[in-house]
């Protein structure tokens, strides 16, 4: 890794000493602490650094290695898939996608590297961009499969014009979607039983005339009866123009109390889509006496 050309975020003073020293941050005044810190910094050099930023810009004529914003060999990637499959990608890194006015049309994109607790891999727009980059799939395929934990997607517009496939499959824990748009698609967010602590905050789900089935659903990605999904948080989001239930926690066994979903659905707005066949929220699972599913302070209108 050529760390010298990678843009890094400022290291907070609260970061561990070794990290601060490794990044050229403030140093301890005590020599013994300094020696210890230097030793740790050498050790730290053997592991992947974090906090780097990578760039994606589909207006560049050629693809670079993603490390700078200027088109060229060290310029942006041209696709989101290339950025997410970057072998140098590490926990805490940020992938910034430029909103060029041209959609990022891609096939199924998988995550390849895991984030870590407190060091999610973040996929977001360019700093300073007011527009959100539009990520559009080719027809008939799932747009994004998040199968590594600790990812955050912020300020991305996911657009799918065919109902035949889902937008996102969440197959790992601690994934966050914030300030994102989900337009049309099959299931916009389809969560497996490995998707604990999924957060969906301040997002918009627009079926655009019954062209999105469930906006958010669980229990459909090959789960076995008796699955448990905890920490689901769907907050401050808007749901409109849907077809089926906007949110459905699903079990298909025909029996009750087999599957468990806990968490909160809080502060959202659900608006009936003309012709919508189902409900705002459909809970088919049980929660727990010590870990509830709380449906709180939502506004549900129409039907």
């Amino acid at each position: 890794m050529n760390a010298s050309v990678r843009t890094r975020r400022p290291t907070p003073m609260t970061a561990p000493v070794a990290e601060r020293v490794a990044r050229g941050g403030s140093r301890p005044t005590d020599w013994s602490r300094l020696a210890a810190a230097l030793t740790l910094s050498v050790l730290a050099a053997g592991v992947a650094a974090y906090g780097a930023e990578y760039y994606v810009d589909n207006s560049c004529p050629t693809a670079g290695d993603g490390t700078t914003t200027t088109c060229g060999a060290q310029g942006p990637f041209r696709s989101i898939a290339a950025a997410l499959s970057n072998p140098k990608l590490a926990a805490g890194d940020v992938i910034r996608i430029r909103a060029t006015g041209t959609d990022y049309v891609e096939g199924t994109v998988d995550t390849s590297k895991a984030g870590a607790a407190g060091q999610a891999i973040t996929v977001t727009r360019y700093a300073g961009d007011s527009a959100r980059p539009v990520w559009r799939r080719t027809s008939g395929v799932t747009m994004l499969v998040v199968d590594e934990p600790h990812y955050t997607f912020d300020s991305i517009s996911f657009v799918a014009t065919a109902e035949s496939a889902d937008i996102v499959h969440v197959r790992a824990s601690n994934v966050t979607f914030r300030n994102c748009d989900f337009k049309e698609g099959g299931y916009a967010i389809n969560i497996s039983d490995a998707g604990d602590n999924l957060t969906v905050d301040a997002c918009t789900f627009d079926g655009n005339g019954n062209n999105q089935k469930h906006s958010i659903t669980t229990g459909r990605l090959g789960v076995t009866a008796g699955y448990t999904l905890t920490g689901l948080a769907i907050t401050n989001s808007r749901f409109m123009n849907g077809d089926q239930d906007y949110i459905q926690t699903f079990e298909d066994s025909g029996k009750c109390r087999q599957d468990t979903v806990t968490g909160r659905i809080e502060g959202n707005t659900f608006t009936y889509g003309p012709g919508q066949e189902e409900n705002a929220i459909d809970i088919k699972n049980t929660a727990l006496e010590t870990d509830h599913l709380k449906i709180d302070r939502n506004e549900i209108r129409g039907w």
Partner: protein
Amino acid sequence: MVLQHCADYVLFHDNLVDAGTDGPCDPCICLAVSASTAGGHPPQTGVEIVGNTFVNCKYAILFGDSDTTAGDVGNVKILNNTAAKLRSGEFIQVKTDIVSGTVRNNLWDGTGSTATALDCVGGAHDITGLVADHNGWFGSSSQQSSCAMDCTGDICDGTDTKGQDPGFVNWSGNDFRLQSGSLAIDKGVPVGRAYNGAAPDLGAYETGGTPPPDTDPPGSVINLRRMDRRS
């Protein structure tokens, strides 16, 4: 609009469910609990329905579904909800047994309705384990309950506002906060929610105290997130 099929320990708090007047209203149930599918469901427990506002639905709350084999419901709490402008009238329609629970501090507006506040369809369902008291109802020309319940008085206590206008701020504008001087103020009993005055108010909107009263103009959309929600 919201279905809970077999969902134990689901807490439904402080939501606004408004079917409006333009949609198909079919089935138009604000909240269905233990809605049955083929095969029926076992008893459902730990459901809390607290502090919600239900408007323009056929029924505010339905227990069971068209399948009368739907499972029993137990340990249910229905507290401090406001229901108004219901098309078929019932605050709670019961199509299954309710083996235990409490119905308290709710405020039901049956204006223009001949329905009952608490309706046991067909009279075949046992809800004798349901404790119902300190609720307010008004506007209906019919009885308060068709269920076989061990209670007397108005569902089922005499400290309600039966037959009298509870004094909503703006009924036609869907503003169901209580005016000062409302007969529903301080007519509830403590159920674990914060309240002002000598006792909790009936319904979803506690008067007085901080934060200040909602400043939305009359007739505007009620925004629950700006109301005094201190449960």
